[in-house]
């Protein structure tokens, strides 16, 4: 908690950053096979783009293809199943607004290994840029704090984001980091083969195919 004293930014004062750049910085901090759950839309697409490298794409990412709003619940489930692995949920403002109750569930379960990152551009950008409630004053970090997630903060800028994500990687959670982002188009789009996505993710987590097809 004391660590957050250095992060007093609010939504209005936080710098508007770039979604891909933030995703790239986050992935760049992950050196211990941390799990990342990407919600739908451009948040998901830029996670996909940011997770490619000359050595291949990191296998510990899960990409939703629908089920809007479930990135946080899915990440909570992974965090419960694998308490020694750090788990990140990457979600947009429109998506998290659809499932605000999940923030209070995370607070009640208090998983030490979970960090929620919200990419907030105040718009349903993929459907044409219609405004979300955050554009009218709803504050996701404030909602998270009021839901019981005391360790929630806005990233004032890129350096602050890296510092907050670093805290989430080293200190007990749950954490929530709010990022104000711009409306730039994503760098790529995810693949759309759900069986492949699930299988790759489970292998990346070391839980692939237990009891499933191929074992009988």
């Amino acid at each position, binding site marked *: 908690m004391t660590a957050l004293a250095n992060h007093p930014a609010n939504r209005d004062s936080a710098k508007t950053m770039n979604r891909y750049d933030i995703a790239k910085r986050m992935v760049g901090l992950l050196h211990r096979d941390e*799990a990342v*759950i990407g919600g739908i839309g451009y948040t998901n697409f830029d996670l996909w783009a940011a997770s490619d490298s000359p050595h291949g794409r990191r296998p510990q990412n*899960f990409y*939703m*293809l*629908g*089920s809007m*709003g*479930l990135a*946080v*619940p*899915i*990440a*909570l*489930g*992974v*965090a*419960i*199943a*694998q308490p020694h*692995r750090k788990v990140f949920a990457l979600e947009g403002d429109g998506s998290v607004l659809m*499932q605000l*109750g*999940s923030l*209070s*569930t995370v607070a*009640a*379960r208090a998983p030490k290994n979970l960090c929620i990152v919200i990419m907030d551009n105040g718009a349903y950008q993929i459907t044409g840029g219609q405004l979300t409630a955050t554009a009218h004053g709803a504050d996701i970090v404030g909602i998270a704090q009021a839901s019981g997630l005391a360790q929630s903060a806005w990233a004032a800028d890129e350096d602050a984001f890296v510092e907050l994500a670093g805290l989430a990687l080293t200190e007990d959670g749950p954490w929530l980091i709010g990022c104000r982002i711009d409306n730039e188009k994503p760098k790529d789009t995810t693949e759309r083969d*759900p*069986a492949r*996505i*699930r299988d790759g*993710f*489970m292998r990346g*987590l*070391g*839980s692939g195919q*237990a*009891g*499933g*097809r191929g074992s*009988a």
Partner: protein
Amino acid sequence: MAVAWYEIVRDVLKRHDVSLVTYVPDNVLRPLIEAIHADPFFTAFACTREEEALGIGAGAYMGGLRGILLMQTSGFATLPNVLASLSVPFGIPTLMMVSERGTLGEFNIGQQLVARTMRPVLDALNIESHTMTRLDEAEFILDRALVQAFATMAPCCFILSPLLTGGKIFAK
């Protein structure tokens, strides 16, 4: 000594290593929820919505932990989108147990109507479902259906009929 339906459910879940129980509560499910909370084998907690409970179970499964979702009939009606976009296409064996409202003495017209949507949704999504009516069949149905759900990586829904549970009694 007679064994209650909820004791059978609890014991079969344990046998199949289904330890995560996420639920939106219901009066009919109450003895099962209490039996599960009383057993340290289980991790059990209430969620704010059935979709959320399903998402947590899906994440847990991919992390190597088996779970089941408990809800009432009206709660199931909030799930078609996530079943169609997460559980079914990704091959996640989402287990659901629904206490059946809307039949055999229903007193709430909303429950009566929403209950009519449940089986058509399950059939449309090609999800295996079993309506459980008899105590002497409960263990066999649960045991075999859990084997199948995990082996074929397919969701399965258990509908608990008032014939099994007694249902919810109309009280003025």
